[in-house]
């Protein structure tokens, strides 16, 4: 069981990649990107987890109490910001693509551009 969280993360990553490759819609594809990225938060937080540990916040908790790793949490926070910005940028591009081409299907767009 102690391997399950890591396996879930690998699974989510693979599922997201599958979604990206088979996608017929840039908006769908952008969401698949965020799904792929969600595997990285799951992995990071699982890596830093300490069995029986509380959050690394020592307000009203005695110092030295077992707690989980704060570093991976800081990394995940940055990662989440990256995912929002990439989603916003890809969607903005998708909007422009739709304005110019009238479609958001990657195959059709490539065919149109030659």
């Amino acid at each position, binding site marked *: 069981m102690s391997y399950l969280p890591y396996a879930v993360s690998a699974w989510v*990553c693979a599922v997201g*990649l599958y979604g*990206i*490759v*088979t*996608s017929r819609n*840039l908006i769908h*594809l952008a969401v698949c*990107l965020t799904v*792929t*990225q969600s*595997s*990285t938060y799951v*992995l*990071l937080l699982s*890596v830093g987890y300490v069995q029986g540990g509380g959050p690394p916040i020592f307000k009203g908790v005695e110092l030295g109490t077992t707690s989980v790793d704060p*570093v*991976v949490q800081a*990394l995940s926070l*940055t*990662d989440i910001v*990256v995912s929002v*910005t*990439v989603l916003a*940028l*890809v969607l903005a*591009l*998708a909007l*422009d*693509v739709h304005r*110019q*081409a009238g479609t958001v299907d*990657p*195959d059709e*767009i*490539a065919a*149109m*551009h*030659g």
Partner: protein
Amino acid sequence: MSWIPPLLVAVPLLAAAVVVATDHVLPRRVEDLVAIAAAATTCALGIVLMLRSERGDVIHWFGGWSPRGGVAIGIDFVADPLAAALAALVGGLVLVALVYSWAYLEEAARLFDTLMLVCCGAMCGFALSGDLFNMFVWLELMGVAAYALTGFEVKDIGPLQGAVNFAIVNGIGGYFVVIGIALAYARTGALNLAQIGQALTQGGSGGLVIVAMTLVVCGFLCKAAVVPFHLWLADAYAVAPSPVCAVFAGVMTDIGLLGVARVYWTVFDGAFAADRAAVGDVLLSLGVATALLGGAMAFLQRHVKRMLAYSVICHVGIMLAGIGLLTSKGLAGAADVLLAHGLLAAGLFLTTGIVIALFRSVDELHLHGRARGRPLLAALWFGAALGLAGPPYVGLYLGHSLIDDAASATGRAWLPPLLWIAGALASASLLRAGARMFLGLGAHRDRLLAPEMKERPPARGTRLSVLAPVTALVVVLGLVVSVVPGLPQRTEAAAERFRDRAAYASFVLHGSPAAHGPQAAFALEPASLESILYGIGATMLALALAGWGLYRPELGGSRLLRPPARALKALHSGVIGDYVMWLTVGAALVGGIWAVTLR
């Protein structure tokens, strides 16, 4: 001098914020000046830092959080001569691009300046960072600014498609890097490159380390556009405005290679000390494949910027092959190729920009003879294109000759001819395009080349009094790289230090300054006869291939060439699903090979 490294990031980023904050107060030209001043400062600081770091690495611990008992608790910048030189090149090319776009992009608003400055700061940060996650942050920042710059011409479908493909492939590369970081962190509990490397030396290799290296390296190779992660590059560089391309082609692509070299020599080298060759051979093969495919694809293009994009891929392959030799000479050769190629590729993109501004076309066949009577432009174009082939003591020659030496020292005599031929192919395509555009030579039609693009490039500023001198400066600098006295010795000394993992680790974690040998002498190294012959041969080959390319349709033989050409073009389909498929195949292949060969 330890105050310089943070400024290389802080100055351009702060200037970007200032440009946005004062947008409605300051006139546009003043904002442009702020941006130009910031880029110039970055370039100057980079040069100072490079000279200083030749006497010993310069380290800066952010927030003053230096390591305690060998455990890094903060983030550090470590400036060695190679990284500092790259930062200086970044500043210089961004400066050139900003000055150029002053005259070129008439409606270039603050958005352009802002994004260029952000990109500049991010590239410097990536080059100098000594922390694995911090490298990822700069990689993403570089990317976010670059996607938007690629889509600058939002009125056309081409730029948008290029930006989408760029964003998605590099985004996935970024996720690979993060997963690799998580793996390394789980094993070592560290994010600092030196500390991870130190811990892995003791912990040995095994599946975790192999997979972590695969993911981090593949992630960086996406940025560096190495086969099969390269497909996005031509879509993006063909459509971004020329000054943007000059920066992208000149430094941003190659910076991914710096990432590969950095993580290999600071992190993974210790763990795989017994199987170095197995690591290097994969990089070497990828490099050779990239160089040859890039050269061949360049030859099949008629869209000049697309052709240049493939020539960039070709030279990235040459650099990766140099790095893959895993010796100081090989790395130094890659660094010198990077410098000369960065300047020449930037010069070629800037020259193309002028051609676009004057003739509103980027199509080799369409421009046939139309640029006749432009001797200066023609001289710049042919000079830079020939420099890429590397005739003796010109342009890329120095880097090539160092890689030749490294290859023969490691018993790989087959490597140099392949790399010279690849470079000659790229050079030949550019010479052919130049001969059609500027001299009006050759056939008017060639069905072997990629189909014509429908789009007409947008109107651009044509103030040649600004555009031409800037372009000429870059091209001339690129051509004389090979004859700078002492450059080969100094890059080699820098490369030697770059590869010294133990010295790096004890310097970063324990502050013990590494002892460095005496300053390399300023002397022109007597080049080996082989390299001179290769250089002459590559130049002749480039000229011959260019001539053949010009008159090929009349010479026949098309039936033989058409099927492979069609197959190559089909691979580069422009469909993002295909690109991600290839990316996955590449990562699986690299990881699979290492899983079998590294034990």
